[in-house]
């Protein structure tokens, strides 16, 4: 007598272990998804646009996260908090403000005092001082990240600690960083600039705040640069080699510590950009990075861990799905991330390596 197959077994069969999918299934699913995306873009253009902007922030964060995980072998749960650290560094470089015992204390050395530093570029809310502050923030953030790697992650990895231990250690780093941010800048949310934000309409696209175009373009440009670096340079190839097979990379003369260091430096640039743009889009708040950790991880997994293009695409999809499903009125805004998570679960059930991960 045959026992009936359990739902789990039937699902395994459905996944392809026992049943061959009809020909062109993948193509049909992609075509349907594309049609739904086009329909959503037309029908809910404003939400679609907002989703792209929110998604580009997830994307930029996820690209850094996926590099750290796949090359430096670190499940970096402090990613959101390091982003906020960088965002506050930008704030400090720009305004010189830290919290004192009787209110804010302002450093005499501050970029916004430079001539014309706050004069708005095009219709953005910021001037060249903000961009200069971003550079200073990266210069401050990268050594902090390298120190965290050198004194926390590297010793643990050297001892052969598993992912769970390193993940817990990174949670410790996250909590410590958040505490430091609160200590230095306080719990009151802050902004880079307090002026009115201009909106623009490009071609027939929905009208959005000019800064949001800046966010979208920076996310796209940085992802292209990272992809170019990974796939077109010697350093990038050695980084991919390390991600693929660390022992063989060593047997080829690649010094693992050097590659890991470069990975953290590149991730530091991405972390600075992601954190600062996130704060530009909303505000500076110590716990904002941690709140967004879930969609950032989701974006990296959605796209395929180790693939920067996948992480970028995953971020955009998570952002758009979250916003558009709420706009349809089927779900209340509180469920927007839940809908994105369901989409993620469906993708990884049928394609565990993500959209653009290794087959």
């Amino acid at each position, binding site marked *: 007598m045959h026992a009936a197959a359990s739902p789990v077994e039937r699902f395994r069969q459905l996944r392809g272990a026992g049943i061959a999918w009809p020909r062109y299934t993948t193509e049909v699913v992609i075509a349907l998804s594309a049609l739904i995306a086009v329909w959503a873009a037309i029908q809910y253009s404003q939400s679609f646009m907002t989703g792209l902007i929110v998604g580009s922030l997830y994307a930029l964060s996820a690209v850094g996260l996926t590099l750290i995980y796949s090359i430096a072998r670190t499940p970096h749960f402090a990613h959101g908090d390091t982003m906020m650290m960088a965002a506050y560094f930008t704030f400090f470089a720009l305004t010189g403000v830290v919290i004192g015992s009787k209110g804010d204390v302002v450093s005499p050395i501050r970029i916004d005092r430079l001539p014309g530093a706050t004069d708005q570029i095009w219709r953005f809310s910021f001037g060249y001082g903000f961009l200069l502050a971003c550079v200073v923030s990266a210069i401050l953030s990268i050594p902090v990240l390298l120190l965290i790697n050198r004194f926390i992650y590297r010793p643990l990895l050297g001892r052969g600690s598993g992912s769970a231990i390193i993940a817990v250690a990174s949670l410790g780093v996250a909590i410590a960083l958040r505490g430091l941010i609160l200590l230095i800048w306080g719990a009151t949310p802050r902004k880079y600039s307090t002026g009115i934000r201009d909106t623009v309409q490009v071609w027939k696209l929905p009208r959005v705040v000019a800064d949001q175009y800046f966010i979208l373009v920076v996310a796209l440009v940085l992802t292209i640069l990272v992809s170019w670096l990974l796939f077109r340079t010697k350093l990038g*190839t050695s980084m991919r080699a390390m991600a*693929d097979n660390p022992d063989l990379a060593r*047997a080829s*003369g690649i010094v693992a510590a050097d590659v890991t260091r470069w990975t953290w430096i590149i991730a530091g640039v991405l972390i600075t950009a992601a954190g600062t743009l996130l704060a530009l889009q909303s505000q500076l708040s110590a716990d904002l990075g941690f709140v967004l950790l879930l969609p950032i991880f989701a974006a990296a997994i959605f796209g395929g861990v180790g693939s920067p293009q996948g992480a970028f695409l995953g971020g955009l999809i998570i952002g758009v799905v979250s916003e558009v499903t709420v706009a349809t009125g089927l779900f209340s805004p509180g469920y927007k991330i839940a809908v994105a998570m369901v989409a993620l679960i469906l993708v990884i059930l049928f394609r565990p390596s993500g959209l653009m991960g290794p087959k």
Partner: protein
Amino acid sequence: MTDVAPILSARDIVSGYGPVQILKGVSVEVLPGEIVTIIGPNGAGKSTLLKAIFGLLPVTEGHVSLHGVDITRLSTENLVRAGIGFVPQTNNVFSSLTIRENLLMGGFIRDEGLQDRFDWVVSLFPDLGSRLSEKTGKLSGGQRQMVAIGRALMLEPKILLLDEPSASLSPKMSEMVFEKVREINGLGTAALMVEQDAQRALAISHRGYVLAAGENRYEGPASDLLGSDDVRRLYLGA
């Protein structure tokens, strides 16, 4: 032994995995231009010896020297720079990288002559030449082994360490791999090879060592080992 100075000399090597001692004082030598094969039953410590020489396992006692220079404590990365090429038994290619990228990674630390060496390696493996843009993860076992050997040759190593190059290959592909090893040796690269297919490996080798339970059991010219009744009965399945 002859008076020729060995390229590689491993003396009284003690090594293993953590507290488990696998090698209990093994010694091997490779002279210039030689192919030397190490055979022995499973668990004899053959692969462990290659890993210890290549710095992948700690050498707790004994010394390894390359051209008379002590390299016992050098890191794997520095052993590569010193002139040792290593082809692991498994996971011996970067499967997500193309054939071209695999070969270029083999020459990662090369300052000059990279393109010339790349062309030379490709000419050695003409089958790979037309597929340079393919990912190695999609190649057959034999083709992957060719990429792995090609990668190790990119730095013009003084000696090539090969860990069971014919493992999991069809007899035809094994034959091809051994033929390539012989060809590479004929071009001037010495080789120290660990192999389960002892008959074929010894057939292309100059000398051989037989290990058992982490110790040297026999050594001598490959033809003598092939002709030895003891070795044939115990280790060659005759």
